[in-house]
């Protein structure tokens, strides 16, 4: 128990501590805290044997209600202040629903805190990957032009975020879950609006109202759960779930779709790009969006065949359409963002299938996606800060200037698609588990097609970017740009994590040893060949150009995506959600 309270309390404490002392003190303290958090989450997973369940004292509950009211009031205030109709409306609805929840008193009680092995894995991801991103953020924020108070506030906010996330994966009480859900919404709202310009405000408000829909879904789920099951606890709800009364489960699933930025709700995550890059990194990899698959994993045992099938289809459809949409983009962070949305869709689909294999695949994907995405976003930040590059089209021949960054980007993308990295194994197992479902229900064949197409699109997308990096001109003199150590060290740590992950997949024997060793050898062969073969005897020549001597300029190719397609995809995804909701009600 003490581990979990430390995990939750320590970042909270530090969020306050950040404001005292100079920058140096702050940096050293943060590093120490992050190491402690990481060590705690590690020791937790090693010493983990049985799920832990316990209750919180009554005073906490009162405190939580107060915070909840305060947060909702803040949303209302912000809405009124910035004159945003949606925000005001949703905040009012939330307050009303919350009042209704307060009046109902369920009788079946259970523990407020419940930590199982899934939570343990989540804790690991949140603290280690999140911690590494914060280390990076320490340096990043110093290069921005803000007052030191605001800089410290930024770091404090990130720590606060960690605390909330740590709590959310431990909680068993849907009321507390709602509170934390709203707190993450609050955090993301503040972080997205951090820069304070018009665009940031607009996108922050967008993120706010979209996430409020999720909050409303949770509140509705709460009400139905109390009415139908007489409880506010996840474990009771799931243990007693009745295929006829699945509304609370489905509503929670919709909240997950909102948090996971699935297609109709994808705008908020893409809008979050305006914030400083560490925010994107932490939103996309370790926190916030990972609530979605986590919630799905929690709900999976309670799902009936229909619900599970529909969620799987929606999830894989989102995977397919987000990766298709990403093909037409050339803003680096947007590409990363859409691929996050796609992979989240896949994670939710896998969680909804709920077979042990699918759950493992989902967890593996959560872990490795977090690491790879964090790595990629860190590189996006470096590109912006050191090279002032935002668009993929401009990163032409980056290998001449920053081989290290190119190395990280290539590893990041490769680890999302190719053997023997973790995400590949997850995709592999995903296909296996969907194939297993097709035997029972042929409709899963659609999920398979979406998955197959989506994964090919993603490969196409990633290598479209990677190939851009390699376009090396013969004449350009290499000009290496110094990159701060605080940028490279977190990246190296993440690569190291990827390698450890590979070792784990070795241990757990997801693939035969030959199947893991061969691609590793193949990848190791490239640098080996580079050092062995110097091509001294070979003649260096120019490219074949039909005998012309003109200089040519090569740019990246685009896939034109008519707006029509985008709208159709959104409509289809929305339709899927309605089918899910109405199908359950009927």
């Amino acid at each position, binding site marked *: 128990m003490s581990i979990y309270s430390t995990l939750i309390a320590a970042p909270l404490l530090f969020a306050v501590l950040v404001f005292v002392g100079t920058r140096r003190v702050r940096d050293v303290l943060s590093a120490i805290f992050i190491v402690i958090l990481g060590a705690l989450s590690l020791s937790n997973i090693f010493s983990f044997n049985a799920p832990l369940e316990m209750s919180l004292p009554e005073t906490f509950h009162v405190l939580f209600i107060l915070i909840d009211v305060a947060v909702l009031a803040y949303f209302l205030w912000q809405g009124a202040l910035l004159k945003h109709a949606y925000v005001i409306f949703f905040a009012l609805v939330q307050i009303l629903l919350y009042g209704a929840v307060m009046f109902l008193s369920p009788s079946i009680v259970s523990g407020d805190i419940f930590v199982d092995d899934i939570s343990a894995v989540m804790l690991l991801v949140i603290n280690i990957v999140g911690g590494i991103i914060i280390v990076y953020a320490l340096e990043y924020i110093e290069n921005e032009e803000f007052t030191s108070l605001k800089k410290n506030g930024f770091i404090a906010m990130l720590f606060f975020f960690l605390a909330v996330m740590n709590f959310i994966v431990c909680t068993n009480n849907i009321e507390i879950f709602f509170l934390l859900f709203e707190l993450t919404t609050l955090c993301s709202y503040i972080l997205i609006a951090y820069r304070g310009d018009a665009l940031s405000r607009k996108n922050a408000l967008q993120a706010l109202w979209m996430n409020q829909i999720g909050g409303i879904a949770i509140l509705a789920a709460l009400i139905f759960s109390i009415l139908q099951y007489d409880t506010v606890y996840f474990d009771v709800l799931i243990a007693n779930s009745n295929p006829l009364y699945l509304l609370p489960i489905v509503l929670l699933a919709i909240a997950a779709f909102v948090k996971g930025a699935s297609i109709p709700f994808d705008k908020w995550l893409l809008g979050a790009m305006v914030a400083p890059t560490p925010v994107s990194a932490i939103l996309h990899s370790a926190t916030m969006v990972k609530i979605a698959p986590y919630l799905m994993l929690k709900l999976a045992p309670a799902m009936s065949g229909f619900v599970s099938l529909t969620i799987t289809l929606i999830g894989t459809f989102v995977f397919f359409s987000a990766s298709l949409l990403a093909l037409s983009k050339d803003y680096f962070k947007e590409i990363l963002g859409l691929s996050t949305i796609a992979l989240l869709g896949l994670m939710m689909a896998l969680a909804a299938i709920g077979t042990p294999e699918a759950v493992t695949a989902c967890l593996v994907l959560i872990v490795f996606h977090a690491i790879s995405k964090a790595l990629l976003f860190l590189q996006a930040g470096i590109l912006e800060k050191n090279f002032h590059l935002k668009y993929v089209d401009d990163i032409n021949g980056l290998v001449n200037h920053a081989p290290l960054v190119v190395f990280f980007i290539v590893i990041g993308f490769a680890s999302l*698609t*190719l*053997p023997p990295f973790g995400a*590949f194994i997850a995709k*592999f197992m995903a*296909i*296996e588990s*969907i*194939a*297993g479902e*097709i*035997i*029972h*229900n*042929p409709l899963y*064949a*659609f999920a*398979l*097609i979406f*998955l*197959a197409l989506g*994964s*090919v*699109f993603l*490969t*196409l997308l990633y*290598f*479209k970017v990677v*190939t*851009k990096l*390699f*376009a*090396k*001109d*013969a004449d350009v003199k290499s000009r290496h740009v110094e990159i701060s150590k605080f940028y490279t060290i977190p990246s190296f740590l993440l690569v190291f994590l990827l390698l450890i992950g590979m070792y784990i997949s070795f241990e757990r024997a997801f*693939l*035969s040893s*030959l*199947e893991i060793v*061969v*691609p590793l050898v*193949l990848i190791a*062969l*490239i640098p080996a*060949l*580079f050092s062995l*073969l110097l*091509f001294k*005897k*070979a*003649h*260096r*020549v*120019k*490219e*074949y*150009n039909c005998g012309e001597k003109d200089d*040519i300029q*090569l740019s990246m*190719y685009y896939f034109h995506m008519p707006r029509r397609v985008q709208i159709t995809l959104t409509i289809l995804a929305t339709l899927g959600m309605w089918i899910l909701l109405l199908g359950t009600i009927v």
Partner: protein
Amino acid sequence: MIEILLIVCAPLIGGLIYGLERKMRARMQNRQGPPLLQPFYDMWKLIDKQAFIINPYHTILGMMHFISLWMVVAFIILGENLLYVIFLHLLSSIFLILAGFSVKSIYSHIGSNRELLAILAYEPILIMLGVGFFILNGSFDISVIRENSPALASLFLLFLAFLMLIPIKLKKSPFDASEAHQEIVGGVEIEFSGVFFEFLYMAKWLEYIFIYLLLMLFAGDNILLGTGLFAIVFFLVNLVDNATARIKMSHLLKIVLGIGLTLGMCNLIGLSYV
């Protein structure tokens, strides 16, 4: 033991098939055609040529394409996981594409681009094929598939879909836009020359082995059927190659994805009902 021997000899066998194919295509056009060992003469000549390179990345990635493709073939012969083989094959294609993009050559870029689009066309069908075998045999292991009875009848629609992607992989008309000799001068392979081109040339032979080994899986444990299938399909592919003209990449995508996915879907849905 025999497997090791097969793996080592795979490029040679591929060369023979390629030679046979050139001969056969010539006979279909009513000409004499090159000798059976022509591919090996080509190899022999290429050794003597002066070696040109553009930059080391390009050359090394080309070599990696060959090596990883050889690994793919080895995995099939050893009877490993089919799905894994498909993804490893993807890796080897990615090496080739990266090689194509790593030089500043227009044709190479267009070729790589088309190669990527070709992957988009055939990869989903390959995955569906793997799933089809999985539903039938309860396992992705090629060794299991080889021990079971022929899957040709139950996977007939997928077999048809698979037939469509043989020309894509072997760069045959009507689906050879990604290589397109004369039009984009061989696409990806344009900047390779001399000894370094040999790797690409051999990789082409290995593609033959790869695709025909996959074809043989439809015959399961029936070697006779497998040989028959090989002979018939080999003939058919060359016949179609001689009889059709190249089509555009976008048409290729539409035709292969449209027809292939529909066939695959019908087959998978049918399988789960049976």
